[in-house]
Structure formats: C-alpha cells, structure tokens
C-alpha cells in the first residue's frame, strides 16, 4: 500500500464522492477547532478538507452518513438495511448512572441513529459493495446485540450475493450493558466472516479513529485487506489503559495506525482524500478476479 498521506492524491476520474457536497452539515462561517492541534478553521474549509486538519493532518471522526457520502458514487443510492433494529435491554441493566433507556433516546435524537452502525449496499466507482459503517457518536460505537446482528446480516448477504464487503470501524468495543451477549457478537460476526472467507468473497477493513477492545479483537482484524486512516488509534488495550495498568510511559506512536503498519498488522495507511480511489482500485482488482473465474 503506497497511499500514505504524503503522496496521496485523488485522481479526478475517481473523485466520485464529491466531498464538497457530502460534507455540508455546518454553517459556512462557523469556526471549528482542530481536535488535535487546536487550529481554528472556518466550517466550510473544514468540510471542504473532509475534516482533515490542513495544519497537522489530523483525521477527525466522520459520522456514518459522512463516511457513506465520501465513499459511494454520487449518482448511486445507499440502500440501508435493518435500520430500525434496537436493543430491548436484555439484561434489564441496572446502571449506577441513570437508566440507559433515556440515554438511548437522547442519542437517537441528537444523531438521527438508532444504533452505532449503519449497514447497507452502495456503488463505488461502478462496483457494488456491502457497507458496514460504524458511528462513534452512538455510545462510543459500542457493539451489542443489534450491532452484531446487523453486521452478521451484512456479511451473510455479501457472501450470498458475492459482493465485496467493506467495514469501516469506529468503536470502543463491546457494550458492557449487554454483558456476555455483547461479547458473543465478536464470535458471531467472526463466524460469518469464516464462511465469507471460505466462499472467497473479499472483505476490506477500513480502520478509523478510534477502534479498540472487542471490535479490534474480532472483525476489525480479519480483513483480507486492511487499511487505516492516518493517526487512527487502533488497539485492543488503548495506550492510556496500558500506561495506567502497567505504570509505564509508552512511546508516543503505540496503538496508532503507523505503529500497526510497522508491526505487520495492516496493509497501508490512506489519506482520506485518496480513500475512495484506493478502495475502488482494490474493488476492481477483485472484480477482475471474480470475472476471470466465471
């Protein structure tokens, strides 16, 4: 993977995402602060730059919708499935910090989401792909029964239809409030991916900031090809937790995309502006292979 941030440019022909259009969520003249270097930017510049800081290169989190708009062809529709699935609080979880039910309702209002993952099919550079896009805003992208079900369903459809699967991760891990049910979603999704691998249908992982815990230790690390956005935190145990529990000070890069690349865990780091073109290139390679088989 040669598309690191330095050399990444998006070929005009593949610039189907039309990011300018996609990112229109902030008023143009609202000032935005880079979450990393605190640089002040105008909202329109921030969005034109795909929420990548022009000063420090920080790739800020995208919402699921922004990510979908960035990736799929402008003229194509995103066909969402399982949109209405919600948790019925299987453990009747007794929280010390208020009921989670009201929290969920609040989240649903503020994000327009019913869960931390959006799942559906779309077209990227003319090729169909099944998309699983996590949204960190919804309970830290945590995985409970609904997330596991939606992802498993997407994997099964992709396998059955022989359409490549792209999962963009962003998650703090399994959802504590659903206990072992949440934990088991790691196994459930991995089992579906085993069948997908057996069927020889491609699975691409895009790791975005942050991805930790049980999501990292399941489908996030099972891609046929795995790419990450620059600077994305991707770990099982995050560096802050390691520092606290081991009482040590870690090197600055531990747990970030560049560190994973150096340690053989991912194929490449791709600047957000090159993301669609990179994924499209990969999809075409697999598409050619699939055609050659028939």
């Amino acid at each position: 993977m040669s598309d690191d941030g330095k050399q990444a440019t998006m070929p005009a022909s593949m610039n189907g995402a039309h990011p300018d259009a996609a990112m229109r969520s902030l008023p143009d003249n609202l000032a935005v602060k880079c979450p990393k270097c605190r640089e002040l930017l105008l909202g329109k510049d921030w969005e034109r730059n795909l929420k990548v800081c022009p000063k420090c290169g920080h790739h800020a989190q995208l919402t699921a919708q922004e990510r979908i708009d960035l990736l799929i062809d402008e003229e194509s529709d995103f066909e969402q499935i399982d949109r209405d699935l919600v948790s019925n609080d299987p453990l009747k979880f007794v929280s010390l910090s208020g009921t989670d039910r009201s929290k969920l309702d609040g989240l649903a209002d503020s994000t327009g989401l019913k869960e931390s993952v959006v799942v559906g099919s779309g077209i990227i550079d003319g090729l169909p792909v099944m998309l699983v896009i996590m949204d960190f805003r919804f309970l830290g992208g945590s995985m409970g029964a609904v997330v596991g079900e939606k992802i498993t369903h997407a994997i099964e459809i992709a396998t059955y239809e022989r359409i490549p699967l792209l999962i963009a991760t962003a998650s703090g891990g399994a959802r504590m409030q659903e206990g072992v049910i949440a934990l088991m979603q790691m196994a459930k999704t991995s089992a579906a991916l085993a069948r997908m691998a057996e069927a020889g249908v491609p699975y691409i992982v895009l790791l975005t900031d942050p991805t930790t815990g049980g999501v990292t230790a399941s489908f996030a690390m099972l891609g046929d090809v795995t790419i990450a956005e620059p600077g994305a935190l991707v770990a099982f145990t995050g560096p802050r937790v390691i520092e606290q529990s081991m009482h040590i000070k870690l090197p600055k890069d531990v747990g970030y995309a560049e560190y994973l690349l150096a340690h053989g865990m991912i194929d490449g780091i791709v600047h957000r502006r090159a993301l669609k073109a990179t994924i499209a290139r990969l999809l075409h390679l697999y598409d050619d292979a699939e055609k050659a088989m028939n």
Partner: protein
Amino acid sequence: MLAFDLDFEKRLADVDKRIQGLQKKGSKLKGDERVKLNEYQQELETLMREVYGNLTTWQTVQVARHPKRPYTSDFIDLMCENFFELRGDRRYGDDRAILGGLASLDGETVVILGNQKGRDTKERMECNFGMSHPEGYRKVLRLLRHAERFHLPVITLVDIPGASPGLEDEQRGIAQAIAENLMVMSALRTPIITVVIGEGGSGGALGISVADRILMLEHSIYTVASPEAAAAIMWRDSAYAASAAEAMKITAKDLKQLRLIEEIIPEPLGGAHQDKAEVAASVKSAILRHLAELRRKSTEDLLECRYQRYRDIGRSAIANLPVGALP
C-alpha cells in the same frame, strides 16, 4: 481439610477452627467433646449450605478467583491419562499462560488446553497471572489445527482474568491473535467443548472458547469485561466492581438463564477447591456426555449447529427484528 479464606466465609472459618481444635485431640476426645464436635460439624454444613446456596455475584467472583481453586493443570492431571504437552506457536514463543496438548480422556485421544494461572509466585510470574500473550493464542491456533488434522475433539478450559494488556501484546497483535482464533474455532471441523472453570474474562476468554457446548462450573464467572474494568469504563471507578458484576449477569446461573451456556456443573459444597478430585470427576463426566452427543453428528451438521448457536445469540435482545429474512 476445608479452606475458608474469603471475607464472607468468616463465620465458616470460626466454626471450622472449633472443629479442628477438637479433632486435634484425636482418640483423647471426651464424650461431651465428641457430641460438641458432631454439633459443630452439623452447624458448619448448615452454614455452608446457607452461604453457598445464596452467594451474591461478587462472592461468586471471589470463589471463582480463589487462589486454591483447581487450575487447568489440575483438571488435566485428574481427568486425563498420558498427557503429552504441545508447546510453542512456531512463530515467536511458548506462552506458559496456556497449557495444552494431547491426552487420553476415557480412552479417547483429545486435544485439551486451557488458561493456566500458576499456583505460587514464581509460577504466577511465568504464567503472567494467567493473562495470555499473542503467542498463547497462536499456540492455541496450532493445537486447533492439530486437532482438526487428526479428527480429535477439542476441550478448552477457561480461567483468565483477561488477555494480557501490555505494550508487547499490542506490538505482536493480541487483537489479531484473538480474532483469528474466533474465526478458526467457528469453522473447525471437529467438536469443541469449553468448560469455564474459574473466571472467563473478556475477549481473552472468548479467544479459546468458541465451542459447540459451553459448560460452566457452578461458581465460575464469564463476563464481557472484568467487573473492575467494566466499573472503570462505565462509572469511572473500579470500586463499583461489585455493582458492575451484578448488573452484567456473569454467573453460571445468569448465563444459563440467558441461554448462553448449555450446562452448569455443580461444585462440591464450599467451592471447587474443597474437593478437586470430585469436581474433576464431574467435569469429566459432563464432557464425555456432551462429546458422545456431538460425535453422533456429521461434520457438516456439527458446523451448521455451531454456526447457528452463535448466529442466534442476541436475536432475542433485539426489538423490531424481521422474522425469517435471512438470505
């Protein structure tokens, strides 16, 4: 001799001390003392039934973590013959927090493996307190493939607070190692039975426990995160561990009720550590029973059942789920 070391066992320890005091006298015991001894013994049994019949979740956690609790090595010794340890991941190292190999179980060759905490300080250090490194999961992977090649059933024994959370573990890909095992176990072409013998914590436990059957010892726990970690994550304070444990439903009884496990294996009164031979015999007979059932299935049927076992998990926890809409 019984052992009562936990804080909630104080009353039991008191009575036991009185019993031991009398027993020390041996044949010199007077008539009234003999009556007293009998009374104390009855009292102890009643108390034990009372306490162990109504353990809170947090007390269960303490029993599951009891330093005298039987470990994987004990179960292998007590259940199997001709254990032949297989070591190393053929990549990097030999993680002593995983103990596994070939063994004869009631005349049948199996691959048996499990988390090993280590009994004394030196052993605990060697075993990293039972917390596996990536090479531990990759050793498991090797043993799984070995089992598949020779059509050997796999028995896994879970007793891990959580995967090792160190810098080296991130470096060598602890997440990748666990994830790969989940995928491989879900499609391994031979029966897999997991027994949770102590604590089953987080992805670290899951990485050796994707199985056709999951059995739990009566006082073992299985949890999405250690109660301490969960409390810290949810409420920014690990002091609320007991509340987190309760809320997360981590006992064998909870998980049986949630239909996440197949069977609870009873422990001797007072916990597994009070009679290791007895608990090993119970575990062995449960394994053999489930194994016989699994052996009756064709490999394709076995794999389809295993897939559905996991495919179904959580579906009852979802509202608005369409029925029968799978491709």
